[in-house]
């Protein structure tokens, strides 16, 4: 089955096909890895607790039992070392999936991700590809405090040579992880712990073992006419919730799910902004030099600027390290009411 043909048929599937089964994001990731491990014996998974513990967040549940020590490898708590080992294995012909228990720990290994993985194909003028996936939960969770709550979308999204993917729902998780594993380039795969347990309906087509989503293509989750909301990961759900509330007041929001941070699908955003004339970006990460900042800059520089009826603005996490107490944490991340408030400000309501 030709993959390009297949995915071009599937892009619009969800509107027309009946739901086949309910799958939560965790299981979608698990099934994606299972299928890709089965499909290609060069694929293997390494990381802390991925094997015998079934995964710190149970994302790799059952895989070690099925595939054994050779393909599912428990590592010591040595991120820089095992990330480097994973990249070296990719140099020499394997297709590693390197799990960071959370992306916060990737800072210990970030040199291997950027300098050893991302830049090598360019430095070698095409002689040395690096087919590796780095994956793990990113961004805020619940009550895990400052050192365990950072969003890395902007950091990794900054670097040429990397593809950076940020799925929202189960279909995203499944299709994008399969695509990432099949991609011959380094992919940073940013999951979200709070989404792991959330179920979504998946159609038969999505459950097909060759279902992949294109990396670098955003999806319009909800059509609208008055304002464009652009988001990624968990915040996409908040945008849809805000849109439902706003619809009762006669405001129709178009919600764009980025799916990929890098390469950024600016064309889909522009087309939407040229339709609605208003833009709000929504993200969990900090505002300064963030994903929303990049989107606003690109809109300024492109054809959509002339269609803006108001400045494009961002809804982001609060510019502080994440506090612990629940009331403080709740007020450190964008809530639905923040999105609604911002939409109304932009629309001058």
């Amino acid at each position: 089955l030709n993959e390009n043909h297949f995915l071009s048929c599937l892009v619009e599937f969800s509107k027309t096909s009946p739901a086949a089964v309910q799958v939560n994001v965790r299981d979608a990731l698990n099934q994606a890895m299972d299928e890709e491990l089965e499909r290609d014996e060069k694929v293997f998974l390494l990381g802390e607790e991925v094997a015998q513990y079934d995964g710190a967040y149970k994302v790799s549940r059952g895989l070690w039992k099925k595939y054994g020590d050779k393909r599912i490898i428990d590592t010591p708590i040595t991120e820089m070392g095992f990330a480097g080992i994973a990249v070296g294995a990719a140099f020499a012909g394997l297709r590693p999936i390197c799990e960071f228990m959370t992306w916060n720990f990737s800072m210990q290994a970030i040199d291997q991700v950027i300098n050893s993985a991302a830049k090598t194909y360019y430095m070698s003028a095409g002689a040395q590809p690096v087919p590796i996936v780095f994956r793990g939960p990113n961004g805020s969770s619940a009550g895990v405090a400052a050192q365990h709550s950072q969003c890395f979308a902007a950091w990794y999204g900054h670097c040429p040579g990397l593809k950076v993917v940020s799925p929202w729902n189960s279909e995203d998780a499944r299709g994008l992880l399969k695509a990432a594993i099949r991609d011959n380039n380094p992919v940073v795969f940013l999951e979200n712990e709070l989404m792991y347990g959330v179920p979504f309906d998946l159609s038969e087509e999505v459950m097909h073992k060759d279902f992949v989503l294109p990396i670098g293509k955003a999806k319009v989750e909800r059509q609208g006419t008055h304002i464009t909301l652009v988001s990624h990961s968990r915040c996409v759900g908040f945008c849809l919730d805000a849109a439902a509330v706003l619809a009762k007041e006669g405001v129709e929001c178009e919600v764009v799910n980025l799916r990929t941070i890098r390469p950024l699908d600016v064309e889909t955003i522009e087309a939407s902004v040229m339709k609605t004339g208003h833009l709000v970006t929504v993200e969990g990460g900090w505002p300064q030099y963030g994903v929303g900042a990049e989107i606003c800059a690109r809109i300024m520089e492109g054809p959509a600027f002339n269609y803006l009826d108001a400045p494009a603005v961002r809804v982001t996490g609060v510019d502080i390290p994440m506090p612990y107490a629940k009331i403080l944490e709740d007020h450190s991340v964008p809530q639905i009411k923040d999105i609604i408030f911002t939409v109304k400000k932009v629309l001058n309501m």
Partner: protein
Amino acid sequence: FSWTCLFYTTHFYHTLLNKPEMQNEMETSSSNLSAVLTREQGLQYYRTMQTMRRMELKADQLYKQKIIRGFCHLYDGQEACAMGIEAGINPTDHLITAYRAHGYTFTRGVCVREIMAELTGRRGGVAKGKGGSMHMYAKHFYGGNGIVGAQVPLGAGVALACQYQGNNQVCVALYGDGAANQGQIFESFNMAALWKLPCIFICENNKFGMGTSVERSSASTDYFKRGDYIPGIKVDGMDVLCVREAIKFAADYCRAGKGPIVMELETYRYHGHSMSDPGVSYRSREEIQEVRSKSDPITMLKERMLSNNMASVEEIKEIDVDIRKVIEDAAQFAISDPEPPLDELCNHIFANDLPMEVRGTNPWVKLKSVS
């Protein structure tokens, strides 16, 4: 002819050699091994090492003429390490090193022309001018790495791939005395030993990490012992045969599935750390001169071959003349080859992808990138 090589080893080495009487010794012990050199091998090693030497000296010249720019870390003095390693492994084995990599790029199969043209940043360079001195690659040679120590986990990963694929190949992962204190190296030791990866970790100890002597950087300068639970061998890195024999032993050990080995090659660099370091503020000219006169790897090999009637003075001279031509030709190429074309600026971002657009320095400049 044969000569004896003196190795210093950790006590583990003796249990490997089935010398149970040594097992209680916690101190290191020395071993003598014999090595055999044929005339053919001798001439080949001489030619290869002399080519490396002349290539590095030519690079020195070109750098001073500002035809080579940026970083340039020269390998002259250390030739026996690269040559001995290559002589002890197969072309299908793997090797990775740090930034003092021109010698290894050559022994791993890249011709002098392509190395020099990469140093001068031309399109005929091994990385099409996009990598430079520290980023040259070849089959089963993973550079050339600029970040100190990062290449060691990468090498362990290559070894993991060898084990995974069951191809009986080994990976040689090199690092310097300066890098030997890096945490990620110990992380690599741990995983390599745990999983019995076929990785030969080699510390090229040239006594200085940039301007810092080993005494000033390391609480323990016994780099061959740093592997702790991994057997270690210390070798005279100026003696190409000793290096070769040690590598052969290590490669056999790894291929047998016994796990990794740590090796220390005692060597010396004549140049400073890089071309921007004169190399005499932290060591004396007398010291450099003494190594040159007493321990030069190429001179030592030549004298042993001559004194054992394995080659004549004329033969050696002929080889030298030949090498001179090769280097001149390569330098000419490196100087005259054009720089890479501007329309290839953005290529090689992603592998196996459709062409894509890359933003230029301003919003109106849209550049093309192909795989």
